[in-house]
């Protein structure tokens, strides 16, 4: 049975971007928030180190410096009009969050405390700057809790544990709603709305080693891609240098911001060789590649595939007060005491720079001509504005979600007041119903778990920190054959109540599409830039590749196109730290 709902707007995802958008729009109309999880479970809550804004509470700082760092950090693939908006508005948005009650750590004078973070500098690269506003090492948790609390205060309507599996677009090309699966009873729900906002997060789970939650399976980028919307810059994925060895759980850059250093097998602080100015606080793409280089040249610990993070000199007070949660992670998951022990660490798949193309008002853009899809908005990791370009700077993910969640929410509120409810396409539930029925009543034999772990291993082996044409081709054909097997996948749970076997297998379908798009983009881009490093094309190539990639998911494979990068204040130059 299909259930119908009508709202002025539907927000998908209840992390920072979705909740911020909800707060801007829910007072002005009938707005619903759909989440696959409970709202306070979203992955925004896992962000640790901080959120940058040039408040200048500790030392001189300017939003122009923040913008420069963002553009340079993104290896000049950043759209600079959007970066300017983000770095300017970060300041007022952080103040707004404080007014909402966010419990920031404080300076002795009672202002919001700030600390250093990778790639953030003063005076256009001269030296590290204290720009990251933080609440211990639980900044994302505090943002998520505060926004959820405000959601309760403002009586936002939540549909919890609803998994969105289709986007509705009518014959006039207007976005007019979504179709979701209610996990509780496996019923299909059609949400008819004037506007739809996606803040659905990333897809790190396509890789074997990741810091991402199990829920981060790329549903929100693939749902629109299956409706013909291109995805932008999917080849750019961030591999964070300090994942807990084997598990991939994140050890925040705040550990290095507070003074932690990386050591190779001979105890050398190797980042001094690669980045003489910023050293261990160079941007993440660079540090991850340097770690791979050390490991490749036999200087991993005991010749193995990891290096050490040394926090011993920070002292118990800093560990317990400034980075208590990650100190706890090391104790719980590794049985190590960071005051005494060196911490085994290696890069972990962390963040998708690419996603649904948008402008800086979070309006979804369909091509290289700035054509919008009426009524469709997106922000946060699922979107590509692009303020992260080829490599995101630490903390800018949180800046992104609050600034563009807020802007997008405002824009959407305006849109929903000016427009009527658009007509639905005929049988709006059909596509989603078929997707679900095929799995519930299918007669396949392939194991979803086997397909998933093969995909994750393939992506980890061939599409990780260091890539090359041959490996990428192997990955591309491997994923194609996994997709063929997925067409014959079998689930074991055929029940109607809280069917997580069905949920995970739907997620696997989304992940395979993500993996295909990332690999196709990586294969097409014959240069090295930011998080995308090609051993066979090790240089950045501005002549041929200073452009965004657009990837269309089509039945016969991925079709690639391009669109220009917006460059305003900062001309591309060599990226040295």
């Amino acid at each position, binding site marked *: 049975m299909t259930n119908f709902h009508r709202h002025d707007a539907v927000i998908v995802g209840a992390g920072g971007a979705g909740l911020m958008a909800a707060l801007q729009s829910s007072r002005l109309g009938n707005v619903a928030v759909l989440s696959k*999880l*409970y709202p*306070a*479970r*979203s*992955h925004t*809550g*896992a962000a640790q180190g901080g959120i940058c804004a040039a408040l200048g509470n500790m030392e001189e700082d300017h939003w122009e410096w923040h913008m420069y760092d963002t553009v340079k950090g993104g290896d000049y693939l950043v759209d600079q009009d959007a970066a300017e908006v983000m770095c300017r508005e970060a300041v007022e948005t952080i*103040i707004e969050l*404080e*007014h*909402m*009650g966010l*419990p*920031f*750590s*404080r*300076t*002795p*004078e*009672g*202002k*919001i405390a700030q600390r250093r973070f990778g790639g953030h500098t003063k005076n256009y690269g001269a030296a590290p700057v204290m720009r990251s506003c933080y*609440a211990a090492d*639980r900044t994302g*948790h*505090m943002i998520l*809790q505060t926004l959820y*609390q*405000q959601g*309760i*205060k403002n009586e936002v309507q939540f549909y919890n544990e609803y998994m969105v599996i289709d986007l509705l677009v009518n014959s006039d090309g207007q976005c007019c709603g979504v179709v979701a699966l209610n996990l*509780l009873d496996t019923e299909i729900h059609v949400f008819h709305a004037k506007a739809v906002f996606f803040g659905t997060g990333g897809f790190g789970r396509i890789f074997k080693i990741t810091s991402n*939650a*199990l*829920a981060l399976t790329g549903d929100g980028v693939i749902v629109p891609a299956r409706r013909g919307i291109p995805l932008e810059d999917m080849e750019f994925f961030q591999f964070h240098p300090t994942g807990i060895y*084997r*598990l991939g*759980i994140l050890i925040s850059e705040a550990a290095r911001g507070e003074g932690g250093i990386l050591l190779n097998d001979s105890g050398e602080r190797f980042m001094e060789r690669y980045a003489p100015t910023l050293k261990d606080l160079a941007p993440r793409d660079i540090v991850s590649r340097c770690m791979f280089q050390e490991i490749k040249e036999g200087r991993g610990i005991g010749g193995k595939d990891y290096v050490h993070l040394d926090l011993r000199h920070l002292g118990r007070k800093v560990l317990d007060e400034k980075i208590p*949660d990650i100190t*706890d*992670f090391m104790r*719980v*998951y*590794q049985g190590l005491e960071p005051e005494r022990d060196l911490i085994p660490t290696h890069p972990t798949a962390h963040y998708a720079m690419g996603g649904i193309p948008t402008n800086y008002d979070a309006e979804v853009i369909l091509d290289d001509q700035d054509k919008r899809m009426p009524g469709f908005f997106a922000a946060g990791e699922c979107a590509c504005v692009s303020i992260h370009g080829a490599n995101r700077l630490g903390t800018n993910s949180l800046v992104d979600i609050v600034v563009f969640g807020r802007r997008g929410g405002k824009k959407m509120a305006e849109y929903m007041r000016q427009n009527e409810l658009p007509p639905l396409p005929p049988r709006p539930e059909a596509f989603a119903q078929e997707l679900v029925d095929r799995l519930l009543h299918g007669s396949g034999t392939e194991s*979803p*778990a086997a397909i*998933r772990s093969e995909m994750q291993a393939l992506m980890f082996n061939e599409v990780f920190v260091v890539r090359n044409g041959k490996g990428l081709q192997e990955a591309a054909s491997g994923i194609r054959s996994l997709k063929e097997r997925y067409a014959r996948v079998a*689930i*074991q*749970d055929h*029940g*109607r*109540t*809280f*069917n*997580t*076997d069905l949920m995970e297998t739907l997620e696997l379908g989304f992940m395979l599409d993500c993996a295909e798009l990332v690999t196709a983009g990586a294969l097409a881009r014959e240069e090295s830039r930011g998080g995308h490093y090609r051993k066979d094309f090790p240089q950045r190539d501005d002549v041929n590749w200073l452009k965004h990639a657009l990837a269309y998911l089509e039945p016969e494979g991925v079709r690639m196109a391009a669109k220009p990068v917006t460059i305003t204040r900062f001309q591309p130059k060599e990226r040295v730290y």
Partner: protein
Amino acid sequence: MPTYSFKIQRFNPDKDKRSHYEDYQVDLETTDRVLDGLNEIKWRQDGTLTYRRSCAHGVCGSDAMRINGRNRLACKLLVKDLPGQVTIEPMLGFTVIKDLVVDLEPFFEKYRSIAPYLINDSAPPETERLQSPEDRARYDDGTKCILCAACTTSCPPFWANKEFVGPAAIVNAHRFIFDSRDQGADERLGVLNTRNGVWRCRTVFNCTDACPRDIEITRAIEDVKRTLLFGRL
């Protein structure tokens, strides 16, 4: 890889009248989490096994459950720390939807009842509201809460009376009552100074033992009781 025995309480409302236990043998690394054990079972042995999970490192609060008789997060407990059998049951006190998944709506309803948001009707300054590190420290502990419900569902007075607002709601009330920027203390204290408010707490300390975030919940509850008795923040 050593083999671990998992004994898991199962219940499928589509076919079961009451719950039962099923046994599984699973090969795991000693560094694996209980959640990895559940995933191994779900992915390689029995796809119908049902539980909530997301972040897998103790910050989202999805996978609170009763493990060997204590409420824990399955992702924050290593199998090597559970010699012998691992027995897993849903949290007590809420309706079981399926296997280890319980209905959390009553939990969030209690949370909402204490006005869990900053209340301050005065016009904010252009910059941040100032707060000294000492004032910030007064409510720090409660800000760690991830709403996993491990505390409330380990509380004997809650088991006895489902109207009790429960430790999680009190901790979150405490977080705002003692925030120097907040003006809603009277409203929240009013909610807590009732039959089903803080006075139902019998200082059993189960909540503090259960909290995966090491919040001193019993202390927070005592702070609220003292404030009600002596009328001083």
